[in-house]
């Protein structure tokens, strides 16, 4: 099972580090990261494996949302199935 974490907002130092730290705390394994900074807009998409998580998926989600709120970023943590069903036949 995988989840997709998207982070969108104003660029700042250490966003990737902070998000990855939270993933590590719950034992969610980061598989892939794409990130771009256009002008000063930061957009990152991270694919994480959530099969061996030590906490509930909801815990990871709440922690990341709280992090997003504190940094003024939008962080969405969603199960990959929603993207697979919408965009693959």
């Amino acid at each position, binding site marked *: 099972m995988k989840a997709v974490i998207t982070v969108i907002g104003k660029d700042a130092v250490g966003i990737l580090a902070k998000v990855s730290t939270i993933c590590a705390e719950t034992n969610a394994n980061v598989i892939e990261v794409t990130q771009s900074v256009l002008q000063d807009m930061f957009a990152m998409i991270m694919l994480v494996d959530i099969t061996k998580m030590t906490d509930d998926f909801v815990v990871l989600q709440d922690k990341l949302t709280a992090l997003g709120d504190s940094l003024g970023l939008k962080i969405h943590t969603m*199960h*990959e199935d*929603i993207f697979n*069903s*919408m*965009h693959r036949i």
Partner: protein
Amino acid sequence: MLNVYDILETIRMIQDECLDIRTITMGISLMDCIDSDIDRACDKVYEKITRCAGKLVKVGEEIEKEYGIPIINKRISVTPIAIVSAACNASPVKFALTMEKAAKACGVNLIGGYSALVQKGFSAGDERLIRSIPEALASTSCVCSSVNIGSTKTGINMDAVKIMGQIVRESAEATVDNQCFGAAKLVVFCNAVDDNPFMAGAFHGVGEPDCIINVGVSGPGVVRSALAKYPDADINELADIIKKTAYKITRVGQLVGVRASEKLGVPFGIVDLSLAPTPAVGDSVAYILEEMGLEKCGCAGTTACLAMLNDAVKKGGVMACSRIGGLSGAFIPVSEDAGMIAAAESGSLLIEKLEAMTAVCSVGLDMIVIPGDTTAEVISGIIADEAAIGMVNCKTTAVRVIPAIGCKEGDVLDWGGLFGKGPVMKVNTNSPAKFISRGGQIPAPLHSLKN
């Protein structure tokens, strides 16, 4: 890895374009609750509803989090109470109160099924239930009622049409202190469907399994923004864009339905492929029609645009889910759609045009506020007209009009929330009283020699 563009598209649809799952509705059969002792029957009804749907809201919220998609409503529909209450020789209002109590215990926002199916005549309990609708709706807040008065196979029961005109008025009169809200929870159907997840017309049909999960999707905002990207496309291209968008929207409905059914241990029924608007900015069916090139919804061309939209939504959705059902199409409830409200207030959208639109789209004259002095006969006439459209065209049609008691044209009834607000619309006041008072049955239409 998943395509970055696809991921961002999904997030944009949810965040900016109001994509949501409109409702997860659990259908529960109350056939095994029938008892000649009304108190015992009500106890069984309460026990069964709370047992089956106790976890519905919690599971809905979990799925919302898991997939990051809002699920606006969690609801319950039950076997038409006229059937359940037929054996009790007492007022069925007690069932409405029990439904209300059970719905509150489960945390759902609406419960449907205070209903009767009388398309060919009244059986035991039907008329008693119909007569009790105004009291039932006035003494509860989340119970919804519907009555099926006609079908393509049976024709239209004009005795029921006559009574329903009075009942709609009485439901409004009984709730005059609450913006006549009673009438907003009452739908009169022709060709009602058994697996409709949308309120106020949802009930759990008699051929359905014991307990089932049905899902209603939404997404007028998504369709509109997709169309807005192609200002110069021709109609074929527009239809294609709508199909593709409807496909994506429906896939989410299918995913959520399957997941909910797994988690609740209840079979998954159908996805209702509907474009259901809300009064929220950008979540309007009228604005889609205007995006196609109409100056204002209700002008010439509206019916054609709506026909194309409705058909394209179905074509796109059909492949995206395992089973389709319910009402499936575009909804045009006036008070629940910011664009419709604006069009009605500006005088562009009239009730006659809405009637024409109902011939090509999902339901019928929905959430229309009419003057408080509209007679029961005129309301019956409106019901008969709408039922005739449904009967002849083999489709579901419905009437949910709200007589605004004490108000006249230009006034506004405002319920807030998903029910929205509606301006009082002009109605032709010439009387069909003689026609309505005749009673009887309009015979079922011929289905060959079509022209």
